[in-house]
């Protein structure tokens, strides 16, 4: 089978963001999605620190310390973009105005519980940022992660063992192996990478999956 690399995963997810969508891209892996949004499709990226219409990374030398993304990296604003303060920014999030939030994850449960902010380790300094607001606020929460941990365990689990970010909040999971919808009756596999069978994915994932492959 051909696992998707980080860029391919970002491109696979980006393909599903429709014209006219308002979308927040979490820090880390989800930020890559911005580089792969289909050209010519008008999509408005929201950033927690008070931006709608976030543009690409500026050219070297054109950075401005007063314009950053939620990962505190230099950013640009698209023509038509807007700035606003933090309470407005999160009002937009909690008020269900964003069509999509794309978030990274340590674990997602079969019920759609998300764990992505804290390993729970005694020496781990907890940091949550805007993840809990995005998890409850966006109309659709898309998770983007590697399917397996470094030691081969499934990150899709029966019950999250890491502290939760949000309960029953994930709508769809994009991994380097598959695309899986979280439905009330369980996990529906809608896409698989080339050369991977449903049975093999089921074996790797551990929890029960349903086969709903669409012609990709």
């Amino acid at each position, binding site marked *: 089978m051909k696992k998707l690399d980080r860029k391919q995963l970002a491109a696979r997810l980006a393909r599903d963001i429709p014209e006219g969508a308002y979308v927040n891209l979490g820090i880390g892996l989800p930020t890559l999605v911005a580089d792969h949004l289909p050209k010519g499709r008008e999509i408005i990226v929201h*950033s*927690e*620190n*008070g*931006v709608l219409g976030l543009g690409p990374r500026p050219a070297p*030398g054109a*950075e*401005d*310390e*007063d*314009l*950053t993304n939620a990962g*505190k*990296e*230099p*950013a640009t*604003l698209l023509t038509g973009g807007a*700035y*606003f*303060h*933090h*309470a407005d*920014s*999160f*009002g937009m*999030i*909690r008020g269900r105005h964003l069509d999509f939030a794309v978030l990274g994850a340590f674990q997602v449960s079969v019920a759609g519980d998300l764990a992505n902010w*804290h390993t729970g380790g005694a*020496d781990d*300094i*907890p*940091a*949550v*940022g*805007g*993840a*809990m*607001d995005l998890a*409850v*606020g966006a109309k659709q929460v898309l998770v983007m992660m590697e399917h397996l941990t470094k030691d081969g365990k499934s990150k899709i689990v029966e019950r999250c063992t890491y*502290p*939760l*970010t*949000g*309960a029953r909040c994930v709508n769809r999971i994009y991994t380097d192996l598959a695309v899986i919808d979280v439905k009330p009756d369980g996990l529906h596999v809608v896409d698989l990478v080339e050369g991977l069978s449903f049975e093999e994915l089921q074996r790797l994932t551990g929890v029960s999956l349903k086969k709903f492959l669409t012609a990709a």
Partner: protein
Amino acid sequence: MENQLNVKSEQFEDAIIAPVIDKIVPSLEAALADIPDGATIMIGGFGNSGMPSALIDALIAQGARNLTIVNNNAGNADTGLAALVGAKRVRKVLCSFPRQTDSWHFDRLYRAGEIELELVPQGTLAERIRAAGAGIGAFYTPTAYGTRLAEGKETRRIGDRDYVLEYPIHADYALIKADRADRWGNLTYRMTARNFAPIMASAATCTVAQVREIVELGGIDPEVVVTPGIYVKRVVKVATTLRKAA
């Protein structure tokens, strides 16, 4: 009766000629001189964007200790908020995201048990600050329901959703960075440097703004004032060259 009114009117006109509202203070030292030990201080900024670095440096020089700091983060590298934390002036931090690759001052003190942390989801942090400024007693938010950060808090089911009760965060001081100001304290900002500053300005008893430029009254188009002067007590101009982001 008519005469008395006329007298008052003349006095009022005199008052307008000699500015009675002048929030511009001559120095950073003067702007922060009365901050006592144990104060709760909101500091604007999201990472380095919008961080009032000149005010923070002046606060370090001023010497107040045992402070409670409200900011999105807990300091980056060795300057600004990180320097204040590193100088052991901070007893407690309320923030959403302390852990950064370069938050070594906070990390060290936290692991040594020398600094207290109240971790607040970013939107809840913003809304608690906004609520303080807007006179709201408490509010229910869906954020963090069913998570560790809601443990011990009142919850309530409203309609088909579950909510967590959250209380406002008030501060004694807010230190913020703005772009332009006038002597009434009206403020504008630059791009994402705005972030928490407008809501923090409303939530503190004494808001101090460091600004790049001071203009005459009327020099800011009233349609574009972001923070009206009612929220601002002191304005201090800081020589700024726009630094490029790291």
